[in-house]
């Protein structure tokens, strides 16, 4: 996983609530057996017209947001399916940070596993940032994970954000969870032995 320390980039406003993972990446894209190449399908139903051409009004089809690396959106972003294809599509497009008043749990976790930082801020703050992303002449924000702060265009006061310390650590270092957990294999072995003694029915699947 690519480490995340400081991200400087254009932020795109997407003022919609309950954006579900089917909207982020429709199911027909899920037939892939790869992680890459999903950026073209990101927000497909919003981004393209019937004939496959770009919908000119959609934010990611307009300059400068076409080059967005940050997305600012409404509450409960990423609800629905557990598909990790949603963060893969964002990442493949180039978006590495999503700011919203709230996220669905599975999507939120999936982001961290892929070097994407989801930031939760109060609705009023998100609305303010969204307005700046829409109207600032050069809507470039800087997300500093080390300092837990968002620097805004036009010199407005920086915004502090909270992040789970362990998740922050893993993002900053680009750590692979599986590798970390396998360092604790002894503890897993002991747990399993105890479980086998106390709940033996869980270890004899008569298929």
């Amino acid at each position, binding site marked *: 996983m690519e480490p995340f320390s400081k991200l400087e980039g254009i932020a795109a406003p997407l*003022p*919609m*609530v*309950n954006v*579900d993972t*089917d*909207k982020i990446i*429709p*199911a*027909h894209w*899920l*037939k*892939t*057996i*790869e*992680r890459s190449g999903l950026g073209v399908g990101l927000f497909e*139903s919003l981004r393209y017209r019937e004939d496959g051409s770009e919908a000119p009004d959609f934010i990611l089809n307009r300059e400068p947001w076409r080059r967005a690396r940050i997305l600012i959106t*409404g*509450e*409960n972003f990423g*609800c*629905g*399916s*557990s*598909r*990790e294809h949603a*963060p893969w599509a964002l990442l493949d497009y180039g978006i590495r940070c999503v700011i919203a008043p*709230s996220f*669905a*749990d*599975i999507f939120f*976790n*999936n982001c961290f*596993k*892929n070097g994407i930082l989801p930031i939760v801020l109060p609705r009023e703050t998100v609305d303010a940032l969204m307005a700046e992303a829409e109207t600032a002449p050069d809507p470039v924000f800087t997300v500093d994970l080390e300092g837990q702060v968002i620097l805004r265009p036009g010199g407005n006061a920086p915004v502090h954000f909270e992040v*789970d*310390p*362990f998740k922050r650590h893993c993002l900053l270092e680009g750590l692979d*969870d*599986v*590798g970390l*957990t*396998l360092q*604790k*294999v002894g*503890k*897993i072995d002991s*747990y*399993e032995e105890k*479980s086998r003694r106390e*709940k*033996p*029915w*869980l*270890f*004899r*699947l*008569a*298929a």
Partner: protein
Amino acid sequence: MSGPKTLFAKIWDDHVIEEQEDGTCLLYIDRHLVHEVTSPQAFEGLRQSGRKVRRPDATLAVPDHNVPTTDRSRGIADETSRIQVETLERNCAEFGIQLFDPLDIRQGIVHVIGPEQGFTLPGTTIVCGDSHTSTHGAFGALAFGIGTSEVEHVLATQTLLQKRPKTMRIAVEGELPPGVGAKDVILAIIGRIGTAGGTGHVIEYAGEVVRGLSMEGRMTICNMSIEAGARAGLVAPDDKTFAYLAGRPMAPKGALWEQAVAFWRTLPSDAGARYDKEVVLDASEIEPLVTWGTSPQDVVPVTGRVPDPAEESDPQRRAAMERALSYMGLEPGTPITEIRIDTVFIGSCTNARIEDLRTVARIVEGRRVAPGIRALVVPGSGLVKHQAEEEGIDRILRDAGFEWREPGCSMCLAMNPDKLAPGERCASTSNRNFEGRQGKGGRTHLVSPAMAAAAAIEGRFADVRKFL
């Protein structure tokens, strides 16, 4: 000393291997279900790092999302779907995981076959790369959906890193009116708490109504916990749970069964256990429900009308309502029973079990699907299909004009050939009415199996209570 504990806390505490200072827990996973869509990249990850599957014996795989529901004897025509199913088969062979292939009678939707095989057991932790894993909570198991990176983590380590969620108790008290079933109960709950109401929580469903429901009904309710934002839903295991599991192929037998049941009886929440949130619903107020919009929280009684966005004060929510109505092709104020449909889909991990099919058969017996309506029945598994055929249900449904299909996820998410065309309107027993969910431009209304049957007969939404 700890005080009275919830069912959730008992299972969680029993599975914590280690808790870090910041509260992140390393949680042991007892059961892992795998399907073809969210696993290929996880197996690839194992191969790249030279890792093995820690407990193939606690892992069960089945292809369900991509499989066609028509004759399968000649394989899958769609090449990308076929490659994904073949990739699962190859991965399972390489890593020693048991798999039910599309021609195996045990094949079906992953959340139908887990309970059916007795792979799902009370007091366990169960995960799958699928958000509807919450279904298994009906057995008093802590079951939740995970992403592909976490699938790889479980395959390699049989554990997950998780923060302890909060708890919510939802009690449904009183008695359900005739014509109102488990699907209406969960839609009513989602309508009440909203699609993010359960975010960060595990929901325990309780109360007279939940205790009175069959295992199938409890599964329907737990299944849609994720539509209320909760990763997991739970129901306390009881004699009904044990009766359902007894004799299932992968359930314990003999002395082990006795030992397991004794343990399972200790699981229900202790009297006086505390929850972070509590919600009570009065069952007598629940009517047969229909969704009007593109979020599962957009519910309205069948006797009601399409709501008016002008009455919503929050501008973001109003915009969402306007967008939903435009997508759904509906005008505010339209009576629900005046909405005509094109398609009826009976299926999905929410409502494709034997009880659901029996309900539909009871309503359509001796009646006909309205002219011009395409009506599909997709049983949840090969075994459900077989049982329905033994009971003559397939005959009743075919005679009424339904298509009787092979098991799979089918039109719930349109990854196989079963799709809505743009603008087509569907009465669906599935779980999500998102834009494009059942096919690009398709319009989904979520309903119970009984309401789907009534809609099939009338060609528009109809109050099932007049068919009782």
